C-alpha cells in the first residue's frame, strides 16, 4: 500500500503549512506543500492527491474578513477542480484559518449538499481580541472518518475570529445530522488552569464541524500543535507525576490521531 498523498495549501499569508505537513508525514502519509498559484497555473494537479489540507495562518491578513479573500481566489480559479475532488472518495481538512477559508468557500457545512453556499460564519471572538490558549474538546458521536477512535482531547487555539455562528435553523440541522464533531468543554486543561471552556463565544460551544458525508472537517483548534507530549501546557507537571508513579513518559499528543485517521482511511 503506497502512502496517501496529502496536499497542504500555502501562499498569501497561510503559515502553518510546515507543521501540518509534518503531522501528516508523521502519521504515515506523504504530504506536499503546494502554493495556490501552482494549482492555478496547472503545474500541480489536485487529482493527484487523496487529502486536501487548508492549514492555519493569516491569509491576506484577515482583510475583508478572515478567510474571505483566499476563498474568493479559490472560487475564482479552482472551484470546478475542488468540486470534482470532493465528489470523489477523498478527504478535506481546514484548520483555523483553513476552517475559515472552507466555510467561506461553502465546503462546510454544505447542508443539502449545497457545496459552494455560505451557511455559517466565524465571527470576531467575544473579547474582540486575538486569543491564544489551550482548550478541552469533546468529541461528539458521529461517523466522520476524521474522528475515529478519537477520545476527548485538548489542543491550542490561536485566532481572532473563531466564534462559530449560524442561524437557529442551520444549528438545528447541524445537530440533527451529527455534523458537529467538536465542542469546547470543561476537562483537564480548563480545570487545571481555571479557564472558561468556551474561548470565543461560539454558539453551542462548537469548535469543529463536518459536511454531511463527514469527509470534510473544519475546526478552530490546532491538532498539529498537539502532536507531542512536550507541547502540552502542563507537561512538566505530568512528567514529574508519571516519574514518581514509575510510569513511562509519553512521546506523542492527541492531535496525531486525527492525521492518522486520514491516512488509515486510504489503507
Amino acid at each position, binding site marked *: 500500500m503506497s502512502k496517501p498523498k496529502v496536499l497542504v495549501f500555502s501562499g498569501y499569508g497561510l503559515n502553518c503549512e510546515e507543521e501540518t505537513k509534518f503531522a501528516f508525514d508523521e502519521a504515515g502519509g506523504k504530504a506536499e506543500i503546494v502554493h495556490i498559484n501552482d494549482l492555478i497555473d496547472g503545474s500541480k494537479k489536485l487529482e493527484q492527491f487523496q487529502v486536501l489540507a487548508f492549514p492555519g495562518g493569516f491569509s491576506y491578513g484577515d482583510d475583508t474578513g478572515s478567510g474571505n479573500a483566499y476563498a474568493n481566489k479559490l472560487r475564482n480559479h479552482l472551484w470546478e477542480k475542488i468540486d470534482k475532488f470532493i465528489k470523489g472518495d477523498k478527504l478535506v481538512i481546514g484548520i483555523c484559518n483553513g476552517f475559515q477559508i472552507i466555510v467561506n468557500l461553502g465546503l462546510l457545512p454544505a447542508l443539502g449538499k449545497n457545496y459552494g453556499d455560505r451557511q455559517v460564519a466565524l465571527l470576531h471572538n467575544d473579547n474582540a481580541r486575538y*486569543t491564544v490558549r489551550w482548550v478541552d474538546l469533546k468529541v461528539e458521536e458521529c461517523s466522520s472518518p476524521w474522528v475515529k477512535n478519537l477520545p476527548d482531547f485538548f489542543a491550542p487555539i490561536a485566532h481572532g475570529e473563531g466564534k462559530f455562528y449560524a442561524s437557529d435553523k442551520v444549528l438545528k440541522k447541524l445537530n440533527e445530522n451529527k455534523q458537529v464533531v467538536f465542542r469546547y468543554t470543561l476537562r483537564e486543561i480548563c480545570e487545571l488552569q481555571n479557564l472558561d471552556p468556551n474561548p470565543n463565544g461560539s454558539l453551542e460551544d462548537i469548535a469543529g464541524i463536518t459536511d454531511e458525508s463527514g469527509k470534510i472537517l473544519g475546526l478552530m483548534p490546532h491538532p498539529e500543535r498537539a502532536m507531542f507530549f512536550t507541547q502540552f501546557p502542563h507537561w512538566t507537571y505530568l512528567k514529574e507525576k508519571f516519574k514518581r508513579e514509575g510510569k513511562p513518559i509519553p512521546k506523542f499528543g492527541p492531535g496525531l490521531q486525527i492525521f492518522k485517521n486520514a491516512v488509515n482511511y486510504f489503507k
Partner: protein
Amino acid sequence: MVVRIEVTSKVLDTRARVLKERLDSFGFKNILDISIADVYTIEKDFSKKQLKEIGQLLTNPVSQKFNINTDSALPNFSWAVEIGFLPGVTDNVANTTKEIIEDFFKDKLRDGDRVYTSRLIFINGKISKLEIIQITESLFNPLIQRVSIKKRDQFIKDSGMDQVVPEVKLNHEVKVCEVNLNITDEDLIKIGKSGIENEDGTRRGPLALDLQYMKTIQGYFKKLKRNPKDIEIESLAQTWSEHCKHTIFADPIDDIKDGLYKTFIKGATEKIRKKLGKKDFCVSVFTDNSGAIEFDKDFLITHKVETHNSPSALDPFGGAITGIGGVNRDTIGFGLGAKPVANVYGFCFADPSDTSSLFKDSKLTQKMLSPRRILDGVIAGINAGGNQSGIPTPQGFLYFDKSYKGKPLVFCGTLGIIPKKAGKRISHLKKAENGDYIVMVGGRVGLDGIHGATFSSEALSSGSPASAVQIGDPITQKKFSNAIVKEARDLNLYNSITDNGAGGLSCSVSEMAKESNGCEVNLEKVPLKYPGLDPWQIWISESQERMTLSVPKKNLERFLDLMKKRGVEATVIGKFTNSGKCQVRFKNKLKVDLDLEFLHNGLPKRNLKTKKPKLLKKKLVVNNLNYSSFEFVSNQYDHEVQGSSVLKPLQGRGRVNADASIIKPIFNSNKGVAISQALYPELTDINPYLMASYCIDEAVRNLVVVGANPQKIALLDNFCWCSSNDPERLWQLKESLKGCFDLATFYNTPFISGKDSMFNDFNGFNEKGRPVKISVLPTLLISSIGIVEDIEKAVSIDPKFSGDLIYLLGEHPKELLPKVNPKINQRIYQIYHQAADNGLISSGISITRGGLKEALIKMFLSGNLGLELNDNNTLNNLSSGRIIVTINPDLKIQFEKLFKGLPFKQIGTIQGDKLSIKGQETNLKSAEKLYKDSFRSF
C-alpha cells in the same frame, strides 16, 4: 466615479460592543449604542452589476450586509464618525480589496483606479459636541488618520458621509538640486541640523550631521572641485547616521582608542572565542544583520534585537508593527536567508494611569499621545506584526517608569534558524559579485519613513518629521519571506541579500556594494506607490517590506519568474560593479558619484570625553507594575504557531509569566533554544557597572534555570541611552560596558549582536506651556539565547506536589544594593545544570529584580500549592545569582550532595494552601490580587 460600499453586521457586532465598553471605561458614560460600518471607497467606473458583485466579494452573507452609497436602514445614532487614513499611509485592507477585485474580474486596476478603506462609527446617546470630539480624539491619530464627524441631521441632509479620496498628489517638478557648500560654518550647521533648504525657504528635515561631519563633506567636494547634489548629502547623512554607524560606540573615548564597541563588546567576544578554542560555538558575529551560533551539527540559530522608539512615540501601532517587521527582515537578511522562528519583545512605558499631557510645541497644538494610548498601540502593533507573520512570540516583558513618558522604548527581536548548507553553499557567507543585478523585492517606495535613520539619531521635538511614521504590511513580507527562505535560497538563485531598513536603498545597496566594491543604480526603475517622488526621496525612503538581493545574470530570469509566481514584486534596479564607486542615475543622468571608501569610512572620528557624575545614593523602590502579570499580552501573542512551544510564556495552574521560555525549532530533534532578557534601568544612576553586571548575570541565570547548557549561552546588547552628548551620560555608558566585558568574559557568554539608540530624550512642553525635557533612564537590555540539549529536561516555575522541599541557592549578603558574585554564581549554575540534567529539580525560578517575595508569589500562584517557609531573613535582599527550587523529598540526599560546598539551604516545604513566611500568611486570592490586578481590565 467614486462609490462607497458600506458593509455592516446583521448580527451582534463584537467589535462595536467592545468599543463601547472601552469608551465607557474611559469615562464616556453617555453612549447608549455603537454600530460600525466598514467602508470601501472605490474610484473607478464600474457598472451597477459589477458594484453589486464587488459588494458580494467583500461581504459575508451569513453575518453581514452591504449597501452601495447610502444605507437605507440607518441605525439609531446621534453622531457619525468616520476614520480613514491620510493620503499615502499604508492601507492594507484597501490593497487586499484591490487584489480581490482584480482577481475576480481578471483585470488589473489601472493608474487612477483607486480603493480606500475607512471605518464609520455610529454613536448613539446624549453626547455634546465637546464630548464627541473627545471621543474621536481617543479613537484616531492625526499623524496617520483623517476624521470627519457629522451630527445625525447633517448626515441625513447630506445623505451620508462625504466622499473622501485621500490620493497623494505631489504637484512639483521632480528634480535633483545642487547644494552650495561654500558657505559659513553657521550655515553648515543649519543644513546638518534642519536639513537642506527648499526653494521656499523651508527645510527638508534633520540630517543629524554635526559641524565636523559637514566640514568633512565640504572638504571632500572641494577636492572634487564641484558642489554636491542634494541626494549625495542625503545619502551621506543616512550612512553616517548614529543609527547606522554607531559613532558613539565607534569613536575613541577618553583613553580608549579603539572605542567602546571594539574594546568591550567585540573585544569580549574575541577573548571568549580564543579561550574556548575548539569549543567555540559562535559562527557569525557582528558582521551580518543578525548574529549566529551553532544549534547542532546541521543548523545555526540566529538572533537580533532592535528598537523602534521614536516612531512608536508618534504612532505606537505603526512604530511597533514596523519594528517587529524590520527585525524579522534582519533574520531573512542573515547569511543567505534564515527562517524566523521566534519573536521577542520588551516595552518600557510610563504608568498608563498618568493622564497629564505633553506637547511638542509651546503653543500646545501638537499633543503627544498619552501613556495608555502608547501602551495599547504598541501592544496591538506587535500583535498584528507577529501573529500575521506566523512567527511565535514566546518571550517578552513590560517595564514601567515615568522617564519613558516622552519616548517609550520598544524592543523587538527575532530568532532565526538556517541550515549550515543552503543548496551547494555555506549559508552564512554571501558576496555580491561584480556584474550581479541589484534586485529590489517586496513593497513599493513612497514618502513613508523619510529621515527615519537621522530622526532616530536625534531627540524628539517639534521638528520631528511626521513622514517618519509608517505602517507595516506583514502579508507582503510573509510572501517574499517564504519565496526567498523556503524556495530561492536553496536553489542558490542569488549571491547576497540584505534588508532595507534604516536609510532604505541608500544603506542596503551601498552596504552590499562593499562586497563587490561598487554599484550602479537607476532610480527611475524603482517601483513607486505614487508618482512625484524626488530622486533623493526614492533613494532614502524607508518604505517597509523590502529586501535587496544580488542576482547573477544566469539566474535572473528564474529568480524573477519564481517571485512572480509567488505574488511578489521584484525589480532590477541596477548592477553591482567593481568601480570603487557608488553611482546612482536618474533617467540616465549621474546624480550620485561617491567613492565607496569615503561613503563608508570618510566620517571623521571624534574624541569623546566622559566625566564622572555624582552617583545617586537612593534606595531601590519596588514599582508594583513591574512585578505584575502581563497575561493579557502573552495570550494575544501566538506562541504556539510553528508547533515549537516547549516552555510557554505563561506557566502552571495560575498562568504566571515566566522569565525564560524554550522553543524546539526542528520537528524531529529534541534540542531546544532557551530565550530570556534582563534589564535594571533604575540601577544605572546608582552604579552603571553593577547595573550591567546584574543584567548579564540575570539573563544567563534565567536560561540556566529552565535547563540551558551554561556553556552554550550567547548574549545581545541593546543600549538605549539618553543625552549621549553629555560626558556624564557617556561615563555611565563606559562603566556599564566595562561591566558587560567583565561578566561576559567571566561566564564565557559571547556577545553575538547588538544595537544602540543613544538619544531617547523628549524636548517639549507641559500643560502649562513650560519647556520640559524627559530623558529615559539609561537602559541596557541584555537578551540571551542558550542551547537546551534535551528539552525533556526543561524546568518550569510551578511546584508540583505537596511535601516537596524548597531550597534557596546562592548568596545573600546583608547589603541594600544587589550584589553580583560571578565566581560563586558560575559554580551554582554549573551544578544546577547537572542537577536538572539528572532530573533532581521539580521546579525552579530565578530571583530577579523583585526579590525573594516576588519569586515566591509566582511559585505559589503557578503551582496553586501552599509554600511554608521557615526563614524570613533574606526577604528584602536583592542579591543576584539566586534561584529557588523545589525537589522531590526522596532526592534530598542526592541533591544536597551535589551542591555541597556552595551556598544553599532548605528554606521550607510545599504544604497547605497558603504562602506562609515564618507565620505571615498570604492566601491565594490576595496573592492573585497582588500579582494580577494591575492589568486585569486591559
